[in-house]
């Protein structure tokens, strides 16, 4: 302690004895060392003269914007639909029985719904001309949100203007960078994009394999134990689909819920297909398995299938869903759903409520199709018996996907020519997170009769025998 004043004195003496210019010089030196160490290193690596720069610019050859597309690419050859896509549909000039579009309940052909939608059009025009925040909220939107929440028996729902964006926006509204998401490897593409957008760490478990999921969860526990500080801030999510569009299988909800509770995850369920098809009154997977709604944190669904309109919704508790009104990107930054399509969803819900036997009918037909279509000699069927979406694979697996794809396309085209519209499921194979086996995706419509199913079976059986 005594030494401190002495030290100061000493420093003062040194400064007094050195001339000013030396101090200035030394100051400069110090600064340039700092500059060299920090600025130079962070700054530009190399320096070029003006001429060199011009030469580099002149020589720069970027890749072409897009690659050339093969004119025979299968996705360039789409069918032309020439009528309403009801139970029957005119495809490329052939009047077909429709086993390809996702209008499970047949509400697309419903006169009352169409009439209601047209009346709304006559009242509000076509577009909403604004996002929900900026005068794009019409009373029909509030009505629909109210009705959906009531129908599902949950506190709140939020409506989006596009099915794909519903799912892809809802997930990243909650899951952020640093969070952990566990998802089934067969989740559809919109979930995959939602997961990408979240920038969380994603772990995929084997399709519907609860043991594999639990293995991943135990691994996560081990990671958490190593870094408890980080673990205290890491949110964990579990994402699954009610009925997987890629396989037609139903997810084992009770098992998922048990794991959710055990490992403290939040469960997001994509019910795009199961909403309006499963359960006694069409409430979807929770009703099907008789699982309490509170066990699921968020239910998301497109309205483009059984509701036969456009858009999507999320439903859940107020605490969860309200958040999307400020954080759901596709909700905040896009024009709201056109009012006539909103009204169509309301009117479809009316039908859900007034004719609850619809769902049992659909499930009955789905079972029937499962039974009949299980008997193809050259194709194998995969799906849950209640699922309105079923996949037909080539029984004898071929060497590569292209070959299978070609064969399936051939079968589908011949079926269409013979009056049964089926279609090979189309994927962007190079972008899917997990390879999906090529298949023909068959959809079930409530209005199908036994004779229709028999006829479809006969045609597909004949054609597939011809081709394979």
């Amino acid at each position: 302690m005594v030494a401190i004043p002495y030290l100061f004195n000493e420093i003062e003496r040194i400064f007094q004895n050195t001339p000013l210019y030396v101090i200035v010089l030394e100051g400069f030196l110090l600064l340039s060392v700092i500059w060299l160490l920090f600025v130079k290193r962070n700054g530009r690596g190399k320096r070029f003269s003006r001429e060199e720069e011009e030469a580099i610019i002149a020589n720069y050859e970027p890749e072409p914007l897009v690659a050339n597309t093969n004119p025979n690419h299968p996705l360039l050859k789409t069918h032309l639909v020439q009528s309403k896509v009801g139970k029957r549909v005119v495809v490329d000039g052939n009047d077909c029985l429709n086993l390809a579009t996702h209008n499970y309940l047949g509400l697309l052909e419903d006169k009352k719904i169409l009439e209601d939608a047209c009346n709304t059009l006559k009242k509000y025009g076509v577009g909403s001309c604004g996002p929900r925040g900026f005068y794009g909220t019409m009373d029909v939107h509030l009505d629909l949100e109210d009705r959906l929440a009531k129908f599902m028996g949950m506190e709140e729902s939020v409506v989006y203007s596009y099915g794909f964006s519903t799912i892809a926006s809802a997930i990243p509204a909650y899951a952020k960078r640093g969070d952990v998401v566990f998802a089934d490897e067969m989740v559809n593409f919109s979930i995959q994009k939602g997961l990408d957008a979240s920038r969380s760490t994603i772990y995929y478990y084997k399709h519907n394999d609860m043991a594999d999921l639990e293995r991943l969860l135990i691994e996560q526990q081990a990671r958490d134990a190593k870094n408890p500080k980080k673990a205290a801030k890491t949110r964990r999510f579990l994402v699954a689909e009610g009925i997987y569009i890629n396989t037609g299988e139903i997810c084992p909800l009770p098992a998922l819920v048990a794991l959710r509770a055990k490992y403290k995850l939040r469960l997001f369920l994509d019910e795009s297909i199961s909403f309006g098809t499963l359960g006694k009154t069409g409430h979807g997977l929770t009703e099907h398995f008789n699982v309490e709604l509170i066990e699921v944190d968020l239910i998301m669904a497109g309205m483009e299938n059984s509701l036969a309109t456009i858009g999507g919704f999320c439903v859940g508790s107020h605490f969860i869903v309200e958040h999307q009104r400020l954080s759901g990107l596709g909700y905040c930054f896009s024009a709201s759903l056109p009012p006539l399509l909103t009204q169509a969803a309301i009117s479809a819900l009316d039908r859900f409520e007034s004719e609850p036997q619809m769902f049992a009918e659909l499930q009955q037909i789905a079972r029937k199709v499962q039974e009949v279509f299980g008997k193809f000699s050259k194709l194998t069927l995969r799906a849950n018996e209640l699922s309105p979406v079923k996949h037909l694979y080539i029984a004898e697996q071929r060497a590569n996907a292209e070959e299978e794809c070609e064969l399936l396309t051939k079968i589908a085209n011949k079926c269409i020519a013979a009056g049964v519209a089926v279609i090979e499921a189309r994927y962007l194979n190079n972008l899917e997170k997990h390879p999906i086996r090529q298949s023909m995706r068959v959809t079930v419509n409530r209005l199908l009769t036994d004779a229709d199913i028999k006829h479809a079976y006969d045609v597909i059986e004949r054609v597939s025998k011809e081709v394979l």
Partner: protein
Amino acid sequence: MGNSNGDSGEVQQERQRNCDISNSWNKMKGITEENMPKECDSSTVELRARKNGFKDNVVEAAPTNGCLKNCTANTTQCATANGTACSNSNSNSKQSLYTPAKKLSEFAAEHTRKTSFEEVPLHTACLTYLGFYLLMILGYINQLLFVPKVAKEENREGYVTLYDAFESFYSRYVYRRVRDCWNRPICSVPGDEVTLKDRVTNDYGWSFQFTGTETRCLNLGSYNYLGFADATGPCAEQSEETAREMGLAMTSTRVELGTTQLHLDLESLTARYLGVEDAIVFGMGFATNALNLPSLISPGCLVLSDEKNHASIILGLRLSGATTKVFKHNNMRDLERVLRYNVVHGNSKNGGKPWKKILILVEGVFSMEGSIVRLPEIIALKKKYKAYLYLDEAHSIGAMGPHGGGAVDYFGADPKDIDILMGTFTKSFGSAGGYIAGSKRLIDFLRTNSHAHCYASSMSPPIAQQIYTSMSIIMGLDGTDTGRQKINQLARNTRYFRRRLAQMGVITYGHEDSPVVPMLVYLFSKIGAVVRTLTTRHIAVVGVGFPATPIMEGRIRYCLSAAHTKEQLDYALEVIDEISDRLGLKYSRKPREPNTIEY
């Protein structure tokens, strides 16, 4: 089905007529009979023939369809002729702002003169910050003293909290105070006027109840630039007809069973409208950006993105994995600096290897700033540095340019200089959805790689019909000059409204020809005050504040429409003048126009 022989003559006639009409569109865009290739006739889009495609049987539908598919070469030629002719004609016409004859620097000076971003007076800046912090502090006190009435998460004890603390604090204690200014429900067409459903809050914005009354307001909030939001008239009628014929949805993707003649016709009409080879349409504008950008760029590519770009673009870039660098809003010097540096130095993360591609990403009209992209300068830069250009014309398509062709048309640029033309149908067309247009090569690539095309639902037929009809009207294909009148009316309304506001002494941002007019009010609380006061005077406007804008720059946004009349604008201006005095919004220190402004 099957009555083709009966009315094929009729179809022939109709085609003839449509051809005449489409010739008139070409003329309008400056194509004379001589320089239009002969093949063009067969491939021009038939306005009504599509309808026949549905009703008649396949024999009749096939030629239309076949033509669209097989005659691509013709279409290409036609579009090429169209495009070049268009730019030629524009360079001669008076309406064009940028001509090769005029030097780029002169143009730049003109653009700068017409664009205004007046700086905020210092004391207002200080007050704004203070006001904002005060609001935050009050919020914190509020949170401490009163048990918040918010919903709690049930049955999830011991879980990591779901929300970021600041985020939920902000929405509960700051945003809630002005929550009534957004998400206001309407119950009418969002046309020149709009009916608001009145609601009240008895708990300071936590919840709202409807009073059962309605307020009819002048609508300065909707993106109804050309006034096509209408429940009557040809658009609504034809949409209804299509809804009855084709149903409300396709319940399928475009690549499965979701493509109808209507979709194909809409795509070729869009391509023709924009003067490019081909186009592809999607059911949602947001998804058009978010789900196509990832197919176009990949890691190893560089994107130079304007700092004010829309959320859908930012999401698309995030999904793509490309490196994104942001340049200052509409600042060409900054863009050139970043561009030059990156071409010269390459990808520093990859040992200075050249970037695979460099994409410049801008919007035509920026919806929060009211500014117009400096397109000619960007085109020059893009050519100099061999970058690609993606132009989002969401707010400019239809609303800008002598033919409603967007920023490209406004500047008389060659549409082929823009590699990727994107836009939405939500605004000027009064519908929903989006498009991407450009070379055939680009569109074919998207048809085989676009996420939205392959996985998302096909556009609903009545929605597509609304676009088809309104686009035909804009192009004059309906045989009337309604489209032309709407475009002129909007341009006139824009100039008048902006100049009157400037004369009043309020600060507005952006370019004098942009129909999006942000008026700066700065303080957060003033946004609420202005929106509420204007509502009591029967004017509906949009307020925008943090986080959509910087904390400093709270603003009121007016969107003009061709549906507005001078009387309506005069009324609005009178009221704005009055409340600007009362609330102290006349911040501008620029000299004011002393003379009355002519409409």
